[in-house]
C-alpha cells in the first residue's frame, strides 16, 4: 500500500514537471522564427502505364508501350503525349523509373538513392544527383542495386525497405519518395501473380525550392 502511494506521488510529480517543461517549450518557440508548416506526406497508389492488349495465348497483359508520367506537385498523372515537356517529374514502366532530365526529358530532373528511414530524411542533399542517360538511369536498374530486390525463386519484386529516392523535379524542386509496393492494390503479401508494375509510393514535395523536407 505504502509503495503504491509513493508511486502515485512520483507519477504526480513527473507529470507536473512535464507540464512545466511543455509550457516553457511553447515560450521558446514563440521567440524563434516560426518554421513553415510541416509538409504533407502524399500517397499515390497504383501508378502504372496502360498495358498493351492481352496476349491471347498466354493470357498475360502485354508490355506497356509508354511510361506512366507523374507530376509530384499536382499529385496527378500526366498523359504520355506531354512526355517532351516539363509537366512531369517521374515516369514508371516495369521496374524502371525515369526522372525528367538528361536523356529522358527536357527538365532539370535527377535522383539519388539514399539509405535510411523516410521520416529521418529531413533535408534533400544539394549535390550527388544522377541524371538519366541512354546507358544508365539516375535510379539504377537491377535487383538489389536501386529500389527493389527480385527473388528468382518466387519471382517477386520487393521494394527494398530503407531505400529512399531523393528526386529533383523537372523544375528543380526537391522531393523524397519511398516506393512501398510494386503490385496492384499493394497486397500485404504478394504472391507474384498479381498485376505488376503498379507503383504505390509515398512522398514529400517541397514547393518553395528549399531543401527542407521535414
Amino acid at each position: 500500500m505504502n509503495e503504491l502511494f509513493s508511486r502515485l506521488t512520483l507519477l504526480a510529480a513527473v507529470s507536473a514537471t512535464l507540464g512545466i517543461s511543455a509550457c516553457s517549450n511553447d515560450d521558446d518557440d514563440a521567440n524563434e522564427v516560426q518554421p513553415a508548416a510541416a509538409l504533407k506526406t502524399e500517397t499515390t497508389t497504383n501508378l502504372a502505364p496502360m498495358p498493351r492488349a492481352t496476349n491471347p495465348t498466354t493470357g498475360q497483359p502485354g508490355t506497356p508501350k509508354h511510361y506512366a508520367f507523374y507530376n509530384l506537385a499536382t499529385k496527378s498523372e500526366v498523359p504520355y503525349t506531354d512526355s517532351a515537356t516539363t509537366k512531369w517529374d517521374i515516369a514508371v514502366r516495369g521496374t524502371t523509373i525515369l526522372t525528367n532530365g538528361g536523356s529522358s526529358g527536357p527538365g532539370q530532373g535527377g535522383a539519388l538513392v539514399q539509405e535510411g528511414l523516410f521520416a529521418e530524411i529531413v533535408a534533400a542533399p544539394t549535390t550527388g544527383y544522377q541524371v538519366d542517360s541512354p546507358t544508365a538511369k539516375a535510379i539504377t536498374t537491377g535487383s538489389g542495386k536501386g529500389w527493389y530486390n527480385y527473388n528468382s525463386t518466387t519471382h517477386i519484386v520487393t521494394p527494398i525497405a530503407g531505400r529512399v529516392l531523393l528526386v529533383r523535379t523537372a523544375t528543380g524542386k526537391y522531393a523524397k519518395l519511398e516506393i512501398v509496393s510494386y503490385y496492384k492494390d499493394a497486397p500485404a503479401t504478394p504472391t507474384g501473380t498479381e498485376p505488376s508494375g503498379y507503383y504505390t509510393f509515398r512522398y514529400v514535395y517541397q514547393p518553395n525550392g528549399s531543401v527542407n523536407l521535414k
Partner: protein
Amino acid sequence: MTLLGSSRQTNAQGIAADTSARHLQLREVVVTATRTEKTLADVPIPVTVVSRQQIRTIGAVRLNDVLGEQTGLSIVADHGRGVQMQGLNPEYTLILVDGEPLIGRTAGTLELSRVAVGNIERVEVVKGPASALWGSEALAGVVNIITQKPQPGTRGEVRLRYGTNRTADLGGTFNHKQGNVGLTVFGNRYSSAGYSLQPASSAATVPPFTSYTGQSRLTYQLDDKTTLSVSGRYFIENQASNVVLTTEAGPKAEMRLRTRQQDYSVTPSLTRCFSDKVLGTLRFYYAGYRTQEDYTYTVDGSTYDASYFRQTFARPEVQLDWHVLPQHTLTVGGGYLAEAVEATRYERRQQMRSGYGYVQDDWTPLPGLNLLAGARFDGHSQYRSQLSPKLSGRYQVRPWLAVRATVGRGFRAPDFRQLYLNFSNPAVGYSVFGTHQVQEKVVQLAAQGQLALDPATGQPLIDATLLEQASNLTAESSQAYNAGVQADPNDKLRLTANFFHNNLRNLIETAAVAQKANGQSVYSYRNVSRAYTQGVEVEARYLVLPTLTLSGGYQYLLAKDRNVVAQLKAGTIYRRDSETLETARLTPADYGGLYNRSRHSANAKLFYNDAARGWSGSVRGVYRGRYGFQDRNGNQILDAANEYVRGYWLWNVAAAKTLRQRYTLQAGLDNVLGYTDPAYLSTVPGRLYYASLTVALGQK
C-alpha cells in the same frame, strides 16, 4: 561438502547392485575422441554413446532414427536427411564407419538413411571440432558407427519388421569365431511404398524405394601379436517416381524418374602389438559412391535427361600408439589421400590429393587430471594447407564431480562441387559453376547471349565483385571452445552440461554472380560469412528403479551471421510492415539468426528394461523449437514471425517381449500424435505403426 560426500557413500552401500551396473557403464570404452581406446568417463571431450541395447529398444532401422533422438542433434532435410550438431549444418559433421569416412554427399548432406543399424555395436558422437585428429569435415563433430566385431562362438540373428507405408525391413547377422579366424556378415533389405503429404500434388513426398546393404568383416590372427582384418561394405538403393516437368522446350510433360545410389568400400588393416607399450596399425581404405538419375518420357519411354555421379576415395594410413611413460601416451599417424570424381555435372574426371600427419599426447600429470594435446597438418593439392591444433583437459574435482574444457580448430575443405561443378538445371534453368570454372563459364555464357542484359546499359548482368570472390575459394574454418561439468550427485542421478562456442570464418555460401536471359541466375560459391554458434547443452539421467531410467536433455542455441549483426548495429537493415507498409529500422534484437536453427530443442525419454522377465519398452519425446525457414519481407534476414516454422514435439513409443531367450516380438508407434506440417516438414510423415520379430540362432 563433507555432508554430501558422506551421504553419497551411504547411498552407494545401500544399492550395491545399481552401482555395479553403473560402474560397468563407466568403464565403457570409446575410440573416436582420441583415436585410441579410452574409457568414456575419462575422456576430456563431450562424447555421447548410443548402445546397441538402446538402438534396439527404440526400434530404430536407419541411422537417422538413432541420431534424431539425441540431445543437441537435429535431423535437417536438405538434399537428404543430415545431422545438425552444435547448430552447424550437416556438411560440418564427419560420418565414419569403424573409423573410415562414409563418402557421397549431396549438397553437403550425407543421407543418414544409407546406414542400416542392424549390425551396429554402438554409435559414438564427439561434439566440438575434431580436425586435429580427423581432418576436414570434422568441424562440428564426428559420428562414428562402430559395427560388431567377431565374438567367440557361432551365432546369428534374423529380423523382420513391417509397418505403415508398406515399409519392410528384413535383415540378418552372422558371427563366427574359432581359433584365429573370425567372421561377421550382415545383410539387409529395406523398402517402402513412400508417402505423400500433399495428396493433391501429383508428386510423392517420398517415392517408393528399395535398398540393400551388405557388410562383412574377416579377422585373422597371424600370431599372438598381429591381426589382419578385412572389412567390406556395399549399399544400393533404387527409387522410381512419376514427375511432371516443364521442359526446356516449353510444354509440360510427364516423366518417369529413376534414381540409383550405390556405395561400396573395402578396408584391409593390419594391427601389431610390438610390445605392451607400442601398438601399430596400418590400414588402407578404398571407397566409391555412385548415383544415376534418368528422366524418361512416360509417353514413349525416350530419354529426356540422364545424369550420373561417380566418386572414389583411396587412403593408406599408418598409426602408432606408444606408452612412452606411465603418464604419457603418444599417438602419431599419417596418410595420403587420393580422391576423384567423374560426373555429368563436371567437365572431365577431376582429381585431388592430400597428405597429412597428426600427433597427440595423452598426459596424466596428476591423478585425476588428464591433458590431451594434439595437432594435424593437411597439405592439399587444391587449396591452402591447414594446421589444426587442439588442447583438452579434464579434472576430477571431487569423486562425484569433474570439469572439462577444450579449445581447438576445425576446418572443412571446399568439396568437389564447390571446386569443379558445371551444372545447368534442365527443369528450372539455373546454372551453378565451381570456383575453377566460373570465370571462364560466365564469359562463355555472355558470348552465347545466354546472360540477361541490363536494359539500361545493354551490358550482361554480371556482378564483378562476386565473380572475383567466387574465383578465390579457400577452406572454411572454426575456432571452438567447449567447457562443461559432469556430476554424479548420487548413485541414481547423473548430470552433464556443456557450453560451446564455435567461431566460424570463411563460410562458403552460394552467390548469384550473373543473371541469365531465362530469368534464372548463374550461381557460384564464395567465402564470405563470419558466423558463430553458441549455446549450452544439458542432460540429466535418473535411475527411477533398477529397470527404469528417466532422462531429459535440452539445448539452447544461438547462431548468427556476424556480418548481419554488424549491419544491424550500424542500423542499415530495415523492414516494411506488410499491413501498414511502414518502414522501420531493425535492431540486433529483431534478428532471429541463421535459418533452420531452433533456439530451444529438448527431449524426454523413459526406458524400461527387465532382462529377467524379457520385457523392454520406451517412451521418447523429441522437441524441436521454432526455427527460421525463409525470408519473406525482402530484407534477406530472419526477423518476422511469418518467416518461422512452428515448433513441434514428436512422441514415439515401443515395447518388446523376449520369449525363451530366442524370439523377440516388438511393436511400436512413431509420431503418436500424428504431427505433420506438409508445407515445411517433408521428413515427418504421420503416425507410423510397426511390428517386428527377431529370432536368435545358434548358441546363446
